[in-house]
């Protein structure tokens, strides 16, 4: 019943001209997303901790009532998502069409467009198949529907032409693994250096910040 409580809160506000507040992020991520997840914007996570960071970024909003659609990421660890705090009962997992033909890319984009209509949060795996024009259209749609697009670049070791123009780009490099030794212990958390860039990030903030993952709730 937590859900109805939070919803009635958001429904009480007028749905028209007034901009709804940004979706919340965990306090531990305030260093990289000081304004939370601003509606209409897109965030790209890349680097070796891209998936973990993306899960941490959407978890707080998912917990507090937003619906999440995950596109791609077939190998996503759902248990890890749950541990990070994502509400799986409000999460839908979408598998992209298998073939790489132009028509399947079209269907894929039609699907993303349909999801923007109903889900506040979209977690989308970036693949090289996405044409730049379609990516721009999707971002415009996200902007119009006041949703939040979180992009995950799983395989960002080799540089590729950027398809999306994210508002915030978070590039991760793991600095330290904590809890594991030589033959004892186990991984408890990791310290990740996050470099921020993108069109909505002022150049003064481009220095790398340290973030702990999984993000403490």
């Amino acid at each position, binding site marked *: *019943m937590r*859900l*109805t409580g939070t*919803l*009635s809160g*958001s*429904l009480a506000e007028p749905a028209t001209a007034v901009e709804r507040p940004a979706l919340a992020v965990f306090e531990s991520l305030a260093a990289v997303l000081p304004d939370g997840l601003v509606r209409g914007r897109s965030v790209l996570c890349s*680097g*070796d901790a*891209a*998936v*973990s960071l993306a*899960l941490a970024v959407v978890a707080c909003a998912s917990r507090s*009532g937003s*619906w999440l*659609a995950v596109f791609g990421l*077939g*190998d*996503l*660890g*759902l*248990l*890890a998502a*749950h*541990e*990070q705090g994502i*509400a*799986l*009962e*409000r999460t*839908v*997992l*979408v*598998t*992209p*069409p298998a073939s790489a033909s132009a028509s399947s890319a079209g*269907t894929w984009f*039609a*699907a993303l467009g*349909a*999801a923007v*209509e*109903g*889900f*506040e949060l979209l977690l989308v795996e970036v693949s090289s198949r996405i044409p730049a024009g379609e990516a721009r259209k999707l971002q415009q749609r996200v902007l119009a529907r006041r949703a939040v697009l979180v992009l995950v670049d*799983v395989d960002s070791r080799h540089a590729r032409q950027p398809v999306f123009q994210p508002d915030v780009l978070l590039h991760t*490099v*793991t600095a330290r*693994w904590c809890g*594991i*030794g*030589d*033959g*004892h212990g*186990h*991984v*408890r*958390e*990791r310290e990740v250096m996050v470099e921020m860039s993108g069109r909505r990030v002022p150049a003064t903030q481009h220095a790398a910040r340290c973030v702990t993952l*999984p993000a403490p709730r």
Partner: protein
Amino acid sequence: MPHGVSRCLRRADMSRVAATRVAALVFPDWPAVALQRELASRGERHDVVAVLRAQRVAACSALARVAGVRTGMRRREAQAACADLIVVADNPERDRLVFEPVVRAVSEMVPLVEVGDPGTVVLPTRGPSRYVGGDTALAERLRALVAATGDEPPLHYGVGIADGRLMAMVAAMSAVDKPGVVVSVGHSAELLARQAVAVLALHAGVSIEMISLLQRLGVYTLGDLVAIEEKLLAARFGSLGVEVHRLARGLDRHPPIVVAPPPNHATEQHFEHPVEDLHRVVACGREMAVELCAHLVAHAVSCVSLHISLQGDHGEHSERVWYESDGLGAEAIAERVRWQMEAWVRSRTLTSGVVVIRLVPVELRASSGRQLGLWDPFGEQAEMAVKAAQRLASLLGPEAVRVAEWRGGRDPAEAFARTSVALVDLAHRAATAVTPDRRFVGALPSPTPAYVHHQPVDVQVLDTDGRVIVVSGRHEMSGTPKYIVMGGNELDIMSWSGPWPVEERWWDPQRHRRAVRMQVIVGESPSMALVLTLEQGRWRATARYA
């Protein structure tokens, strides 16, 4: 329920004491039979099988029952009772698909059969009985029709004809593998009164807790239940009390309503061009269902049974009545349209595109508090998300859109199953959190890797001298792991932990699994944390802390 309506209903009861005369065709343990038939179609023959629902045996084959397997047992208890038992998870889709030929066979004689759960068929006898020459002849004919659908493995079923659904089902159940039982007109109530209250759980979906409570209150038979005044039951149990009292009297669970059905509204759709795409037909059916339900909700009624009629361009048509005692919601109606379409395509009688879809509510009842309107009141967001999910499923196919369901186990890749959205009620399930109900001993320590490879990558784990690390039966490693070779690259091991043994299903020689897991940090800037699993002599990277 408003006052006026309930008064109307009571009057309706008085005027319509006699229940409709129906025939029931019952296949006990249908999920198990469906499983056997499916296996048989693949050339496998298994006599002792059981189907699990929520980790308990929901149905088992006759031979398994002889061996001591009972419904409600846990998996291990069942396997202890019968060592070579094949245990498979419940699959409503399979039950329905395998049941389809039976429904088709019966509907060749009676076009409008009522389909509820797979495993039971109910049909009104008035027309058919007159056609074949009496109830006994009808029972025989029904048995013959079913027998003609094949006997591999042999089907066990019973036919019962009586006044009202419940008595017909009880009669059918008592007539399994025997000639059909016909209860003569007017005798049903008397016979029903002698039945134990447990039949309510078996055939009418009343909860086990309710039955157990009745028994503890000293109500053992339906006769005892009828002897109690309805208003007393209503006072004690609310609408459920009224329902069981009605059922015990041999009536249908919900009183028929006397308020005139609301004028039909947008329940028929004609296409100028025949539609050949199944998804489009279903999407269209869904839109109609949403409108129909909105209309019904506005009139404070819900639809208990619905006649779906589909017509093809060459004049072929498919007619079916769908029944759901709790009322059919928009989503449920859309599902039924899909089932009927699939069955029709499968039967190969559809030779062209669809030109007409018609939804006609056959039986309506006043909405009780349980009918939660259109999509359940979980807010605007949920409603929009559910609609978007449906749109996604119609675009990409129902298998491409999934939700997580807790399954458990030690393997992070298997902890949550990905179930198709077509099989769940999204809005409803959003009310309860999807969480692990317990932590399995031997599961990976938290945090769990964010990336689990469904197709693991082969690696070599080597010690200082370049020898492959092996792990003894006592979980001792042959050396200190120094580096791994993965995809042709050598990566130094910075830290490691393990080995952690995993032992699963040790009681089952075929599905027994023994493995050893290890956590390693490899490489330096960038470093990578992996879970390596040694199984059957092969090391593989099964998960990554991405």
